């Protein structure tokens, strides 16, 4: 026998369930534009039926609905895809960024830049060869030499400045990663507490945690696994970053062995675990992208500093050697031959102990001397001591040494050829980084669409649901009214006999 007022409970449950659903619609709409939000659904299920007995036996009478749980629409497979690809994207973007800045240093397609300076230096030798006794021409040549030195050193300085920028950005990003990791740890704890009973779902906290992993995955390669309690354990390239109880704090530390430091004297940061000081590699992502684009021997800043270094070395060794073999103006002066154009005034220039030729590079100070003889006399334009001062044959030879003579120092190319291949290689590297990043962006975009397709809020859907739950609520209320009327009849309209 069912209870007289049992129907009310059924209806009330219905009203509550519709309300909860409607609230969730509201929550979805409110968070439609929240980053990382996944749409939520109230899972409704029937309540435990009441057993009633009738003449035909017992039967199950429905007692209404209950909101079983609120769950979020999320595809963890898409998440893991996303995290993998966004690390690659972050790496690519940083590589592209650095290469385009290096391109700025070697901006050479216009008629300014290193190539133009090299051309002018060569032209100055040629002009000297036609008028070698003229001090004006010699001064102009010396000035072109200074210009070349300045250009090489300025380019090197610009590259070092980029290294400095990268170092500070790396530090900022590492701090950000630490902050993200500590937040993930705290969310781990909150989520496990909430979900401890096994029934509850910490939807919004999980959304926030996934969003943090999204951000972290841009910075470094991450591997995420979830344990039975709902903790995220995150590893990067084998290093445990976060688990249920702690997180590993990362730090930057000056790398003392990097050639950037030992040769070029510019600080370089490396990533270490703060507690142990152990040096780690993050595999992928923005941070590693910046480190690699700084340290790589071919496509990194170090590689390009090496190339400038090689050019300086060529000028200081091979070019000087040719210059030493020629003769300067004043044949009577004993020191009119064997002079260097670059570096120290005479003799073979020893390799610098730190390998940095760029810093050694300068136009020989002897060429600026004013006494006892004019330093300009030492510029070797003559081939033989017996030649008159009007002879410029050696200046032609020195011009050739810049343009066409192949040198072992320059990998068996000429200085011009060497610089050409530098620019070419840079262009190809930058172009391929751009297209790789572009492709990766498309891929990440695709994955993001996929994710939005699962987790995103669709207004039409929400509106439809709104109408659905509104109607459900209305109908339940109507049943309540009907029951009210029935009971009213029962209580007030029946049994009036004898009153």
């Amino acid at each position: 026998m069912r209870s007289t007022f049992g129907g009310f409970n059924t209806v009330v449950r219905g009203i509550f369930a519709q309300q909860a659903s409607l609230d969730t619609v509201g929550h979805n709409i409110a968070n439609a534009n929240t980053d990382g939000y996944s749409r939520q659904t109230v899972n409704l299920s029937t309540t435990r039926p009441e057993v009633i007995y009738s003449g035909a036996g017992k039967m199950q009478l429905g007692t209404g609905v209950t909101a079983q749980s609120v769950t979020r629409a999320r595809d963890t497979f898409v998440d893991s895809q996303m995290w993998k690809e966004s690390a690659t994207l972050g790496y690519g973007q940083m590589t592209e960024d650095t290469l385009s800045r290096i391109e700025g240093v070697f901006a050479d397609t216009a008629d300014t830049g290193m190539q133009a300076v090299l051309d002018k230096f060569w032209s100055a030798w040629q002009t000297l060869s036609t008028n070698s006794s003229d001090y004006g021409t010699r001064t102009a040549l010396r000035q072109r030499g200074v210009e070349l030195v300045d250009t090489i050193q300025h380019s090197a300085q610009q590259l070092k400045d980029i290294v400095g920028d990268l170092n500070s950005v790396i530090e900022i990003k590492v701090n950000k990663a630490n902050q993200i990791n500590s937040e993930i740890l705290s969310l781990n704890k909150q989520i496990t507490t909430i979900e401890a009973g096994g029934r509850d779902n910490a939807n919004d906290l999980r959304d926030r945690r996934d969003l943090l992993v999204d951000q972290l995955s841009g910075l470094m390669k991450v591997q995420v696994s979830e344990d039975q309690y709902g903790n995220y354990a995150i590893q990067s390239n084998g290093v445990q970053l976060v688990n249920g109880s702690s997180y590993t704090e990362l730090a930057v530390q000056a790398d003392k062995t990097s050639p950037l430091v030992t040769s070029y004297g510019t600080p370089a940061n490396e990533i270490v675990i703060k507690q142990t000081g152990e040096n780690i590699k993050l595999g992928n992502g923005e941070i590693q992208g910046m480190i690699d684009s700084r340290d790589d021997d071919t496509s990194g800043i170090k590689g390009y500093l090496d190339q400038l270094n090689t050019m300086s070395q060529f000028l200081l060794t091979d070019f000087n050697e040719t210059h030493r073999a020629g003769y300067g103006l004043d044949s009577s002066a004993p020191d009119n031959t064997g002079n260097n154009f670059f570096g120290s005034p005479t003799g073979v220039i020893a390799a610098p102990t730190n390998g940095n030729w760029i810093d050694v590079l300068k136009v020989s100070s002897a060429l600026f001397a004013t006494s006892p003889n004019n330093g300009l006399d030492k510029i070797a334009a003559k081939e033989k001591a017996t030649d008159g001062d009007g002879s410029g044959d050696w200046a032609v030879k020195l011009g050739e040494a810049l343009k066409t003579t192949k040198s072992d120092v320059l990998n068996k190319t000429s200085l011009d050829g060497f610089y050409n291949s530098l620019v070419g290689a840079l262009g190809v590297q930058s172009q391929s980084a751009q297209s790789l990043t572009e492709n990766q962006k498309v891929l990440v975009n695709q994955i993001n669409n996929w994710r939005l397709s699962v987790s995103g809020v669709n207004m039409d859907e929400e509106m439809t649901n709104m109408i659905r739950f509104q109607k459900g609520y209305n109908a339940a209320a109507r049943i309540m009214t009907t029951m009210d009327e029935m009971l009213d009849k029962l209580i007030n309209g029946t049994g009036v006999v004898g009153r």
Partner: protein
Amino acid sequence: MRITNNMITGNYLYSLNKSLERQNDIQEKLSDGKAIHRASDDPIKAIRALRFNTSVGTNEQYTQNVKDAISWMDTTDGALQDISDITARAKELAIKAVGPNPTEGFQAIASEVDGIINQLVQIGNTKIGDRYVFSGQKDKTEAFTTVKDASGKVTAVEYQGDNNKISMSIQPGLADATRDSVNLTGTDVFGATSILIAADPSAIPPQEEVTTTELFKNLIALRDELMKDPPDLTKISSEPAADSIMGKMDVDRNSMLLQQTQMGARMATYATSLSLLENNNTIITNDLAANEDLDIPKAIIDAKSAENVYNMALSVGARIMPMSLVDFLK
């Protein structure tokens, strides 16, 4: 596939941004008419641009060298023309001297020859800028100086230059004196050098060794002979001609004329080189332009179509973006 509102906005923004990027790219190219702005725009073209720019520079330098060489040779040629005229006059005077002349006549001829000597010294010291064209490689040294006696009479002309050639290279490769030389030395023009003792009574010690050239030696010999009273005309003209002053002057003049002819031929070669280099310049400039200049009509069409796409995206976006069921629910 389930489509959500943020997907639509996200994709819309992505495409809109791409369309803007494309516009920006074309805009950058159109604004200066160059198809490449950084090496990564097109690495191959970028290297070619570098090489072509270098070629333009090289070509300009060699053009300048040729022009310098031509101006040097023009100056030389002008001087040679004058020398040719003056030595012709000297020969006329020598012929006149051999005829019957009064003593005053010899004196007059002698003084004209003296004038010629001075004139020739002046021409021998022809300069281009501050460079003596006939001094060989000692181009900052005055080519000819005169030794005078107490009366101011020129007793010897000293050659101060050397016999080396100045090269102005007009093509890649090392300088080659036979191919690239532009100058005529004092000995080329004024005859071989020899050392003589200049008699200078005013100097103490009264004599000095002087390196002189044939032409001046012979002219001074002619003048000195005519100054004598009476002059020994057989010294001026006799058989065999080679031993006489006039015969020697002919040899000097002929060798000078030979040099002038050769110089003329060289100048013609250099003029050809100049026009060749100028042609090359046109070709390289064209190559350079073809390599890095923008195809303007195509770029404008691209710009227009990018603009259309952008406008279309904007208007479609404005129409579909706000639409949802919300707009239709009362």
